[in-house]
């Protein structure tokens, strides 16, 4: 029997997502006939970044979905709040790691949405999910429509564009001290550049990888099997909310901060990661978002 190969990941307390990506081998370079161990070493029992946990889950599930024999490993005997938190958000469950919860699992409403899997065919969306989002948001009704619309568009994109072998991974967290809600959807699919290159809309078949991520938030820009409005409207919504948007795909990262779009190189992610940070203090008027961008409406009633 062949010895399993190890993918070693060191999860430090203040690791930035880009540094985690640097540690993850491009899945296309892995040997499909080999066994792999995704060995996650957690250093310093202070803090664990839930977004990094979500990335690891998406990576692990993407490998498994592509037929790679992979087992995740994490020393869950470490008894500290950070590891317990990782357990509560579903990190170990999603990685198929046995973990005995040293506590009573409380309802996460008002704090976070545990790491959830979105079906690969984009068909089913757990009806409880939107309620979980609302519960997590608590009383911030002024951004409810904006958040649900944005989440829905991203879920739709996973099914429609990602060609991911299992779907995507969703996570949401409320940070009361910063007064923000952060939602992330990560898929290990083909990525934005490939979708443009191989889409039925020939206008964008020849764009570079950098151009692809630059234009993906443009109005009416589509690879061919969509309306080209989803990411554009999310960008508009988040800009009005004074929140942040970050899209990582392939070797590039697009960020929208205070309405300003910036593209830079990033460590490689096979697929697409989208992070939306909403301010809980800035109301978003959806009618204003649509009206100011010259969307016509028909009178239905």
């Amino acid at each position, binding site marked *: 029997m062949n010895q399993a190969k190890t993918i070693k990941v060191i999860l430090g307390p203040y690791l930035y997502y880009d540094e985690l990506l640097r540690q993850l081998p491009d899945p296309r370079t892995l040997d499909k006939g080999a066994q792999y161990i995704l060995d996650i070493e957690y250093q310093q029992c202070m803090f664990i970044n839930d977004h990094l946990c979500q990335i690891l889950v998406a990576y692990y599930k993407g490998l498994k979905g592509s037929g790679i024999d992979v087992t995740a490993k994490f020393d869950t005997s470490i008894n500290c709040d950070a590891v317990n938190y990782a357990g509560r958000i579903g990190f170990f469950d999603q990685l198929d790691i046995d973990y005995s919860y040293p506590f009573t699992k409380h309802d996460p409403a008002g704090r976070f949405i545990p790491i959830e899997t979105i079906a690969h065919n*984009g068909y089913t*969306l757990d009806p409880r999910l939107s309620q979980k989002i609302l519960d997590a948001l608590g009383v911030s009704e002024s951004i*409810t429509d904006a958040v649900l619309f944005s989440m829905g*568009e991203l*879920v*739709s994109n996973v099914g*429609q564009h990602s060609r991911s072998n299992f779907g995507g991974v969703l996570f949401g967290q409320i940070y009361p001290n910063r007064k923000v809600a952060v939602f992330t959807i990560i898929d290990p699919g083909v990525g934005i550049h490939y979708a443009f290159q191989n889409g039925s809309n020939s206008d964008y078949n020849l764009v570079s990888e950098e151009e692809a991520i630059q234009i993906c938030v443009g109005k009416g820009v589509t690879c061919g099997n969509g309306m080209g409005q989803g990411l554009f409207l999310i960008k508009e919504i988040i800009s009005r909310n004074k929140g942040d948007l970050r899209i990582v795909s392939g070797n590039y990262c697009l960020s929208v901060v205070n309405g300003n779009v910036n593209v830079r190189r990033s460590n490689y992610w096979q697929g697409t990661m989208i992070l939306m940070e909403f301010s809980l203090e800035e109301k978003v008027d959806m009618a204003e978002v649509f009206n100011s961008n010259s969307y016509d409406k*028909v009178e239905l009633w």
Partner: protein
Amino acid sequence: MVVISFKQYGTLLATRALARDIYPDIACKIQNDTMVILDWEGVQMVTLSFSDEIFGLLFKNVGFTDFKQRTHFTNITPGISLVLSTAISMRTKHPLGETVD
């Protein structure tokens, strides 16, 4: 008169795949000359893609006048109303395609 409750399909109606499954039933009912009540109670939000795949196509296939005469929207939130009417408007500007590409 028939009532179609969208809550049975979920509370956040997001994908074209879901819409494609729902469309034949709604289209059949509307084309049977019965008044169709489209009940949105319990639905929290829809996406443009979902809306286009059902209502954009209905407008295109049934026609604006017949659609309005045969349907009544109830319990719809301002947010859902906004997305639906925008999706339909976009579809009417792209009348030939099966989807708005």
